[in-house]
Each structure stands twice: as C-alpha cells, then as structure tokens.
C-alpha cells in the first residue's frame, strides 16, 4: 500500500462509528508552539501526527534520521497541520484539533500518546510532507505522570485532551517528566507569544547520513590499524 492510499484508509477509518476521541493542541494561549531549527516558528501547513510508537524511545532517537523506519513503527490516531483551528487567522507554530480513531482496529487503548511534528519541503498532502521531511520533533508526557496522555477506548469511553503545554510547568520551566525524544525545548521563542517553543531536529538527507556513516567507519578502521 503506498503512502497516499494509507492516508485514505486512515481517513475512512476515522469516520466509522463509534469512535474514540483525542483533542490535541499547541494553542496561542498558553503560548508554547513549535520552532524550526532556524528558530523561526513552524510554518502554517506543516504536518503533525498523533499516535504511538511500537519501538522504544532509544530506538526512536537512534533512528531519528530514518523517517521511513519510524513511520513503519508508528500507529496513527490522527493528523492535522499547523494553523488548524485558529479561526480565520492561522498562526505559525500553533494548532488545535480533534481526531477520532477506531480504538479496536488500531489497538491504541491505554497506549502512550506521542506528538510527531514535521517540517517538510513539500506540504501538498500528508504523504508528501512525510516523504519530504527535513526536520522532525517527537514529544510526549508519560501517562504515568499525566493519565490524559494515554489513548482512550471507543465511546462511550470519554475522550482525552492533551496539549504540548502539559510538558511545561510553572515559570515556563520544562517539567522533568517531559519526554523530548527528538527535539528540544527552546532555545527560540514564539514570534506571537514570546514564550519558548519546542524546536525540531534536522533530519539528514539519506546521502548526508550515509556520508556521515562512511566517515565514521573510515575513522574506526584507521584506529583499528594503529
């Protein structure tokens, strides 16, 4: 199944009834959004996905350059784009959305909610955003610390509501429990609110990654010869 047909299948799944519901956001109030590595607010139209990973955080971080690998190990509950839900005046770095999913077919009930954020060269549709990602960020709050970060079951089980602001405590300090699997908190601030943003990390192009790997192997070989 190619990526586009996968997206279509996911969309069809999302409208079957009854569904489970997750509300997810990074809203201008309280003001924490997303930044590119350049420190500029993530532009309107950038892809965001909510779901869970079938691999450990360590593996996610080690394979942060391999979007295809991460995608193969990701179970999606929904997706949206930066700017969604800001009435008539989309804002860079921010969004708010509600996603419905089938908790039975996705087997998401009780699993950890992850936010996966993309900066891509082409945002024509989710498939092209995924294929052309140049930066990503993966963030979450463990549900052991905040139970809202576990996916609910299908209705009538109640929905859950999560926000990237949940990762930030008083005085704009990142909570120690917050998981920044890929990406950082700051250093840049939102151009709209002045609050610190969550910043994505660069995804090396496959060629760059291979060169880096080749260089490392060469150095290792030289050391072994000595």
């Amino acid at each position, binding site marked *: 199944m190619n990526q586009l047909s996968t997206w279509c299948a996911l969309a069809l799944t999302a409208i079957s*009834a009854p569904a489970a519901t997750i509300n997810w956001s990074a*809203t201008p*109030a309280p003001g924490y959004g997303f930044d590119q590595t350049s420190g500029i607010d993530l532009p309107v139209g950038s892809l965001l996905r909510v779901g869970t990973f079938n691999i450990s955080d360590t593996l996610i971080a080690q394979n942060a350059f391999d979007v295809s690998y991460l995608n193969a190990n990701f179970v999606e509950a929904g997706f949206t784009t930066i700017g969604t839900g800001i009435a008539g005046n989309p804002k860079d770095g921010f969004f708010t959305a509600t996603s419905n999913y089938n908790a039975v077919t996705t087997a998401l009930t009780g699993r950890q909610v992850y936010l996966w954020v993309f900066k891509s060269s082409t945002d024509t549709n989710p498939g092209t955003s995924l294929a052309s990602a140049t930066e990503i960020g993966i963030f979450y709050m463990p549900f052991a610390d905040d139970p809202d970060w576990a996916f609910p079951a299908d209705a009538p089980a109640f*929905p859950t509501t999560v926000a990237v602001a949940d990762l930030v405590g008083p005085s704009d300090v990142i909570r120690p429990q917050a998981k920044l699997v890929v990406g950082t908190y700051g250093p840049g601030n939102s151009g709209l609110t002045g609050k610190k943003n969550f910043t994505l990390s660069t995804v090396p192009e496959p060629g760059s990654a291979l060169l880096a790997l080749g260089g490392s192997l060469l150095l290792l070989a030289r050391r072994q010869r000595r």
Partner: protein
Amino acid sequence: MPPSPALLAAVVSATLACLASVASGQSQAATDPVAFISLSIPGTGGTATNAISFKALGVLQPVSYQGSADTVNIQARTLTDTAATWNDNDFNGAQGAHYVEIIRPAGVTAPVPGEGTTYDIAATDKISKTLTLVQPLDATIVSGALFRIRKHWTIGMIFGANNSAGFLGSGSSSTADQIQIWNGTSFTLYFFQIDPSGDQSLGGTGWRAQTSNSADASTTVIYPDDGLVFRLLQDGPVNISLLGAVKTGPSSFPISAGFNILANVYSAPMTLTSSGLQTSGFSGAASPSESDQILLWNGTGYDTYFYQLAAPALGGTGWRSATDTYADAGSTAIPAGAAVVVRRVQGSPFNWIVPQHPAAL
C-alpha cells in the same frame, strides 16, 4: 456512520402541550406545565457495530406534594411540615422512590438558600409530620424553606416492565441493547434479558443489570439529572414518547472531580452561555487540557468545549471549542432531551446552578 444533521436535529422534539393541573392524590399538590417528549434513540442503520447516544428524559413526574418546612434539621437530615397531610411511608418503600426539591416561593425573584437541590426520601412519618432524607442537606437551608415532592422515574416506567419500548433483548448484555448510567466512576449497564432456558431457570426475563442476571432492575431509579447513554445493536431506532411535568425553577446539580454525565432537565434547549455553568464554578484556563471541559456527543465522537482565559490576540476569553480557540462557542446548544458530560479538571466539587429554561413559561 457520519453524523446526520437531520437526525441530530430530529432526535428530540419537545412540545409544551398545554398548561394544566397535574394530577395528584395529595391535597397540597402544586400545578406544573406539562410537556410531551419524543425521544428517538438511533440504531446502527445496519452500517456500524453499535450506535451510541446521550439522552435526557426532559420531563418529570408530577408534583405529589408541596409544602413548607417549618423545621429544618440539618444534622438529622429531616424536614418537618406541621401542615402535612401525608401518611406513613407515602413517599418511600412500597409507594416507590420519591425525592424532595427545595424551591423558590412564587413571586420571589432573588435566589433562596439551597434552591434546586434534591434529596431522596428515606422515611415519611405521619405523626411527626417529618420527612427523613437520604443525602446530607445543604447547610444553608433554613426553616420555612419551600419544598416539593415528586416520584422518581424508573427503568420500568420509562421503557416498560416488559420492554414495550422495543429494545433488543438477549440472554447476555453483550448481545443486547444497553442503557448505561454513569455512577461517578464507571457505567452501570442495564439490558432487557430474555431467559434463554425457556423455563425461566437462567435468571428469568426482564430488566437486569449486567452485574446480576436474576435481580429485577425495573425499579432502578433514573434521577432527574441522570444522563442516559444508549448503546444499540439493532438497526432501527427506539422511539419513546413521554408525557410529564416540565421542570420549573432553577436546578442544582453536584459536579464532582472527574467525569459527570448530566441531563438537560428542562424541556427546552440551553446554550453553554445560558447554562449557568461558568457562573457556578466551572473553571477556565489558557489551555483546553487544563480547563474544565464540556463534552457533547455528535453521533460518532465527542465535541469538546472549554472556557478559555486569554488575551484577545491569543484567542480571547470565553467559551471555545477544542477545534477552534478563537471563535466564540457560547451559543453552542445543549438540546432538550440531550445529556452532556462535564469534566471537572480543576479544583473541588461545585453545584451547577442551572437557570430555568425557557426563562418564562
């Protein structure tokens, strides 16, 4: 199944049929307007495995008695009415479950202490002219408080002791239509059991809770503020027509930490703004995840609303949808015959004081 606007709009039609005296065997009975409510509980339409809906009865039993509590004993949970004409156990036991509601006297415009609060009746005493109540009385209620008594609805009264409403019955709750009532921590499931043995030896036929296949659940009380969650397996809808008294005066419903499912007790729609929630103690916040929340069922999932506290440039202060933090959502309707979920995220419990809808009858 996508939500059908026509279906959603037609789920409830509430008609103020007439203003009439409500029948009562008590000399102190009051009059109430009556309404005819039609509830359409959607089936699957053959396109889904089950169909969920959130409903409210929207009408009450007629007033059985109305009087004034000459003595209110908060500690003993008793109301004494020296003019009472009731007999022993008129409002409890074999006569069925009844409840007291504290009301505002006619012509009084200012709120009175404890108005709209309700209490189950544990005992009715003829000689002492005293009612003993189940729940602790609001400590602000004072002697002279006006009150009225109504009988509770039960599952058997609403849906028929023999399931005249037409729910899909079965030998197991998992293969039957379900009525789910939230108990504060989980749903209690009711269904119409059809004894599979043919000789009534496997629990018998009738209304049952999922927790017991033999105990008759037809007398289970449906409280005025109970939101009912229906989970139908059958294709077609279940249509219920209910004639009852219109709720008048303000209502007071306890909101606990966590999730609460509450009925719109009035026979008219209300909005988030007119509901009185925000003025009762519903807590807003900058983020939807930190605010108390209202969840409205849309036929396939929940629509979430919260009270945002923000500067105008960041979305402003007021009712907002979780899908749009800039647009005013205060006019979002809570229809007659609908139930809502109130999620108390912040702080301690509070009483939701709901103004009468419509304001004038």
